[in-house]
């Protein structure tokens, strides 16, 4: 016999059902949580821990010291590296955003046919079938002092002496970055633009907007999420790049990450780890600042 009143019996069953539901959902989330912990959380924790260690020529000495961070923050090199990376990020962002927006606009509002636009978009991805390293290096024979481009200009009689700024320069870095990162900018913008209802554009024209006003007051605001998403991709790629700057400047300049790779090459793990931690903090701050302004999750889900 059950001595409890039926009401509290029901309550007890509810409590059990809720607890069971919670257990089931935790179980369902477990695989991802385990993967994230093992392959992301744990390595990150190790990097942070090593950042506080001491070191000598033979390797890492377990310790807790702030020296690595102190040296990093007080060193002028750090600021120079960041200034250069941020300059690249800024210039490349501006170029890719203009390219990405214009190409998307063309695909969505001029091509109009979704399948043709999709085919053209897929054509843009063909260069991405080779690795980023190869695509970067491929610019060297083209831009070099005796490269194809200089050769062409001399043949055409436009210049007498080969242009030197083409390779191993900021110009070379920016051109290969633009080549690498236009697509990551293009795709989210294109995605956002395809979702704009054609009737909304017509409604704007009907309400008296000219072509420029339609772009400024309707298309750009409605692509905002795509632009922000693309921008986050491009800026984090550039801040995380260790290869392009080194190759395209012929070793004249380093990026934040290539400086770390030098340190790792010299077995100086703790300062490299400290630099990595600082970079992660900066990128996370930037992204969270941007996502606070724009709901990126929404554009990813849609």
């Amino acid at each position, binding site marked *: 016999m059950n001595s409890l009143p039926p009401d509290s019996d029901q309550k007890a069953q509810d409590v059990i059902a809720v607890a069971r539901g919670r257990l089931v959902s935790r179980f369902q989330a477990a695989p991802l949580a385990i993967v994230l912990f093992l392959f992301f959380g744990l390595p990150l924790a190790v990097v942070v821990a090593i950042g506080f260690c001491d070191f000598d020529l033979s390797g890492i000495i377990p310790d807790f010291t702030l020296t690595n961070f102190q040296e990093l923050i007080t060193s002028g090199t750090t600021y120079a590296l960041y200034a250069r990376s941020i300059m690249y990020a800024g210039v490349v962002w501006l170029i890719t955003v203009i390219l990405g927006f214009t190409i998307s606009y063309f695909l969505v509002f001029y091509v109009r046919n979704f399948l043709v636009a999709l085919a053209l978009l897929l054509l843009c991805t063909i260069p991405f079938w080779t690795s980023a390293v190869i695509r970067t290096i491929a610019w060297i024979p083209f831009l070099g002092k005796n490269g194809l481009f200089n050769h062409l200009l001399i043949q055409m009689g436009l210049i007498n002496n080969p242009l030197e700024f083409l390779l191993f320069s900021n110009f070379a870095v920016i051109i290969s970055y633009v080549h690498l990162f236009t697509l990551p900018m293009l795709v989210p913008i294109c995605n956002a633009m395809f979702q704009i209802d054609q009737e909304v554009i017509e409604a704007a*024209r009907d*309400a008296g907007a000219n072509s420029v006003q339609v772009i400024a007051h309707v298309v750009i605001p409605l692509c905002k999420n795509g632009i922000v998403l693309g921008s986050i991709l491009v800026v984090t790629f550039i801040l995380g790049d260790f290869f392009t700057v080194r190759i395209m400047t012929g070793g004249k300049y380093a990026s934040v990450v290539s400086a770390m790779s030098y340190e790792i090459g010299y077995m100086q793990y703790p300062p490299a780890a400290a630099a990595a931690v600082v970079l992660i903090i900066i990128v996370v701050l930037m992204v969270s600042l941007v996502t606070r302004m724009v709901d990126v999750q929404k554009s990813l889900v849609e």
Partner: protein
Amino acid sequence: MQQTGELQLVGVSKRFGEVVAVDAVDLTIPGGSYCCLLGPSGCGKTTLLRIIAGHEMPSAGDVLIDGESVIGMPARSRPTAMMFQSYALFPHLNCLDNVAFSLRMRGMPKIRRRERAQQILDFVRMGGFAHRMPAQISGGEQQRIALARALITEPKVVLLDEPLSALDEFFRVQMRVELRAMQQELAITFIHVTHTNTEAIATSDLVVVMDHGVIVQVDSPIQVYDKPRSSYVARFVGGHNVFFGRVVESKKEGDLIELSNGERLWAPPGPVSTDRRRSFAVRKDCMTVSRASDEPAKQWEPFHKVEGVVHAIEYEGTRFKVSVILNKEEMIVALMTHRDFMASGIDQGDPVVAWWSPEDVHVLLED
């Protein structure tokens, strides 16, 4: 006062490749009237509306508003405003800024344009929704905002593309009354595209019935409903039973027409001679259905009745809808008053006679 907003279409055609969407349409809509373009989907009514708005270029012909051609004028410069079927509100702007959009495009300062937009919002009874986003309001509310956005430009002609199709029955009836009231208050031309006959008849001054890119009838709602020109209009507007048969005897006072089931019916003189096929119509509510065995059924006159079997009876509250099967394919519908139906005592499956008076026979010009 001179009424503005007169719209004239002169030989307007639109071809999409091989397909002719609108075929040499001539139409004059008087200023300040409420006009419905009625027709099934694909009859070219929306294309015609888009041509008037300037969102589509006609392949031939001219569009005049108050006597001035607007061909070659972009949509933004025309004295028209369109309300889209999907409403097409700007999802990134709140209701107030949606309505104020066109004033912003003209460069009106923020305070003044918001003030004006608020007035229009009050006019469409959406004053309290100024700061809501389109995604936060219902379909019916979105529609009012879309209407307000169209009205703020002070257009001479308002173009409504299937404005009520996305609403449920209750709001549809309410909104069509309001649309009509607003049109009368503003005294501007409204052109309303619809495929629903009741909507067209209930709201408009002028009904334009379209079929395959051509206009088949332009008349007042009463004329279109009561005196359809052709069997197409009669069937589409839906108030009539259409009879179709071969003329077996043609006299001065009328024709004797034989239906496919062998029954012979009389109709006033029509457009064709003996042995040709012609049609006529009888209003559904002018038909009476009686049991075949009933004595009072004697009141029917020769050649003004058909025999059949009751297929279905629907009670619509104000009247009964009785469907009678004549032969395998053909079916007619009689709308009977509550009293008449109760007196007739008919039931599903009964052999019956459907009959009408000679003056209720309406001649159709066959298309």
